[in-house]
């Protein structure tokens, strides 16, 4: 019953994001733009290093893009709902505050992750166009994309959602702008952030997965400190 309620909210949020064409378009354009701009870097490295470079790019880029999508869609799902006042009506339905938060996190995570996956596929295709050898993600990077990326997206959505619900509208606007600048800057650094000698192994992927799960658990725990009163009194 609890899960079904969470999925009802998640489904509605997914539908809401997908139906907002302008926002979906921005998300897809960002994914395409950064893929197109980043992938050709493989042609600038030595043949021996091309595989590692490609995997390093995938490791960083897909994660950062997923987090960026989380940021982009969280604003609509949490911030707008609060600003427009619909959250009050939702809080009067037979859902707990935790179920509402969870449903929104799941809904945004799924859409953001699908776009991140799309970017990963696109980047692989483009990288192969510029490479003489066949480039595919290593098993560790595949695991990273399959587990770590969605876990970090969920963590980012959860944290942003928590902030949107907890804080006032002015604070949220300031935080939103700051986060946008940081993530945009981080994405721009994709080509330079990981050195050529570095190889992403199972260990890095495993550590990141643990960090993501712990963060998610921590944020989930923090939602205990959210209250309906806090949300309602910070709407205006």
């Amino acid at each position, binding site marked *: 019953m609890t899960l079904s*309620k969470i999925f*009802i*909210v998640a489904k*509605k949020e997914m*539908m*809401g994001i997908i*139906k*907002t064409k302008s926002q979906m378009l921005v998300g897809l354009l960002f994914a395409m733009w950064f893929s197109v701009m980043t992938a050709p870097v493989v042609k600038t490295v030595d043949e021996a290093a091309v595989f590692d470079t490609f995997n390093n790019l995938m490791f960083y880029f897909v994660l950062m893009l997923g987090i960026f999508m989380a940021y982009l869609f969280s604003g609509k799902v949490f911030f707008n709902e609060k600003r*427009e*006042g*619909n959250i*009050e*009506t*939702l*809080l*009067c*339905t*037979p*859902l*707990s505050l935790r179920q509402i938060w969870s449903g929104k996190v799941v809904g945004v995570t799924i859409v953001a992750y699908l776009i991140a996956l799309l970017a990963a596929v696109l980047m692989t295709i483009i990288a192969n166009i510029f490479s003489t050898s066949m480039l595919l993600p290593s098993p560790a990077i595949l695991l990273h994309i399959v587990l770590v990326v969605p876990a970090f997206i969920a963590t980012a959505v959860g944290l942003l959602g928590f902030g949107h619900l907890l804080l006032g509208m002015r604070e949220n606007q300031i935080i939103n702008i700051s986060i946008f600048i940081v993530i945009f800057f981080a994405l721009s650094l994709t080509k330079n952030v990981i050195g050529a000698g570095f190889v992403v192994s199972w260990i890095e992927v495993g550590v990141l997965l643990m960090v993501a799960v712990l963060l998610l658990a921590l944020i989930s725990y923090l939602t205990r400190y959210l*209250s*309906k*009163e806090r949300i*309602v*009194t910070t709407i205006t």
Partner: protein
Amino acid sequence: MIEVRDLTKKFNGKTVVNGLNFQVQEGEIFGYLGPNGAGKTTTMRIILGLLRPTSGKALVFGDDLGSNDELRRKVGILLDNDGLYDGLSACENLDYYAQLCNVPDREEKIRDLLDFAGLTKRKDDKVGTFSKGMKRKLGLARAMIHDPDVLFLDEPSSGLDPEAQRMVRDLILHMAKEKRTIFLNSHDLDEVQKICSKIAILNRGTIQAYDRVENLRNKFSNPVFEITLTDAANAKHAFDLLQSLDYVSDCKPDGLGITATLKEENYSNILNELVGNGIKVEEAKKLAKSLEDVYLDVVKEDSS
């Protein structure tokens, strides 16, 4: 059904509502009135469990709505915000809430409510394209999607055309006949007068009046008497006489007519005085006291 006991709410030390006490019984339409900033919305939010009281209790079916998730299934709300998503269609909005409230036969229920709201032809259009009135009607349909036992309505007729206002009013009366309880937060005194069985008037955080509408009319508003005289001489004579009576608080001439406000119900005495003094009265009638008079009296009395 709804019970508010010694309810007080303070924000940063400032008292917004203070020691409220009232009850709403099953099937009753309860009007909650008061000027802006009186504390109406705060009271409603506390009852709905959106705010915690500083002291006292607000119970629905004997329990706190804020902490009992399942109990909220019995409650429908229409707040100032319609609770609708502009990016979704009318049908999708209703379906979302129907699913959250676990409504059986959703499709049939949605179809009936869209029909009731007169929005069947627009069911697949995004709500963002709707007028304010259409959104209000759809918001009301949304509030009723799960057949709630209690409905909390905040200015339900706001933004509606007269025809739609009438429809909403009829619907509220219909729901009350089905033994549903309505908590109506409204500025529209005419609407409240027509449909509410009991009212509370809130001013500056405290309840100034709480009773059945008829009782309040008798209790708070001074009786008014309108007399029409046969000619100008009679009218002048009557006016002088009425002014001299100690139980007449105010007297206004208007051609051959005079409107007298009495300090107490004393209609027979006033007629006896006029006739006893040889004044020829063509017509005499008590004026019905409106809820607006009561409301203004209560609020004015409190302010003074």
